């Protein structure tokens, strides 16, 4: 490491006379060391950020992630009070698990997050009312609809302000991105999200 000979007062690296040599290393070397240290620190910081970003992305893709719920289509389960003053701070944040996507097995009453069929960038949160093979009765048109294979019928808990299968029909199960299991925020509403059964559904007998 040292670039000076014992007894000589000229630094071999930067070729300047330095009376402190050879007891203390020349300032040019100290500068290089500190540059290298800063560079190493920045590099290791970047590497750590990248690693944790990757790990976070993998975990949220494969296992579970936290999503905010906006709107009142699922009151009183989520967002029971519409507080326009606080805005997004008072939104319910829920835990969405992705283990159900291994086999796409759902049960009646599960709350799911799915991509909207008319705009793949939007995600909606609704409850599954009907699974493939069920007959759903729509009181509006007095129709009975059979849920086709690979699809499901979703509805919000607050029927008056919910855009769901009553408007866009049954949705393919491939659009489902996760199942909601717990509410994590606000702290006073932390609880498990229960399955609720609906009377509209007629199972195949």
């Amino acid at each position: 490491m040292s670039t000076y000979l014992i007894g000589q007062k000229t630094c071999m690296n930067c070729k300047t006379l330095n009376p402190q040599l050879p007891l203390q290393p020349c300032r040019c070397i100290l500068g290089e060391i500190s540059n290298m240290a800063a560079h190493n620190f920045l590099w290791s910081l970047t590497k750590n950020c990248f690693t944790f970003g990757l790990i976070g992305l993998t975990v949220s893709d494969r296992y579970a992630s936290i999503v905010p719920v906006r709107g009142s289509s699922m009151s009183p389960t989520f967002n029971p009070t519409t507080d326009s003053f606080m805005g997004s701070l008072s939104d319910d944040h829920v835990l969405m698990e992705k283990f159900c996507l291994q086999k796409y097995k759902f049960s009646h009453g599960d709350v799911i997050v799915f991509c909207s069929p008319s705009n793949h960038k939007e995600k909606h949160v609704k409850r599954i009312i009907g699974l493939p093979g069920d007959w759903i009765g729509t009181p509006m048109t007095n129709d009975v609809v059979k849920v086709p294979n690979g699809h499901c019928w979703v509805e919000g808990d607050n029927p008056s302000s919910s855009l769901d299968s009553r408007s866009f029909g049954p949705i393919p199960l491939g659009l489902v991105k996760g199942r909601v299991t717990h509410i994590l925020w606000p702290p006073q509403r932390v609880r498990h999200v229960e399955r609720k059964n609906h009377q509209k559904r007629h199972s195949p007998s």
Partner: protein
Amino acid sequence: MGLKPDPIIILTLIEENAADSVPQLTKPERETREQTQGKKREREMRRWGLLAKEALTQTLTFARFFCLFHVTNHYLWSPTLVFGPSMLPTLNLTGDVILAEYVSHRVGRLGPGDIVFVRSPVDPNKIVTKRIVGVEGDRVTYFKPRNGDSCHTVVVPKGHVWIQGDNLYASRDSRQFGPVPYGLIEGKAFFRFFNGIQRRSFMLVKEVQHGLHDRPVVCGHLIALDHWDNERCNSY
């Protein structure tokens, strides 16, 4: 004779041995039994601490590798095996290894003519390979070869695409299950590695994969498409 022991190792050995033998030799009155045991415990704890640190480093390395693998396979590209009669003559009956990329459908640069991988609306556990014929707003004219050759015209609704296999006579696609929401598209095919892999059953495909050690498909992920065999090709 050529091996010079590292002085640092020698010093450590001497230090450890000295610590072990100190109670008997130099300070027999001051070093009590408890202090010796305390030092031993300290050394053991240090060893366990080093072991734990080593385990954590290895786990982090493994996690980093696994996450990189997952991100590449879901957000960049991955080799995929496709088989079936519905995309003849473009893709082979018995199997093709195709590089699927997952960037185009996220930025929305998919258009008519692209071969895409779509999660089947009929069975969400299966992924099918078809070609996009029309996007939202397009007017698509199609005919069903087995249903009296009648022509139908349909306008593709917002947020949906119309997909068809190249082999119209043996393909179950949008003509049967209607336009498909864009959210079901999983990826786009853009490169073909191999041509015509022989397969008789899914298990045979696994053997072929293991034999190709120097090919990139060994660590790719396989998407199981609609199982095809001689008896059931009529259902397509």
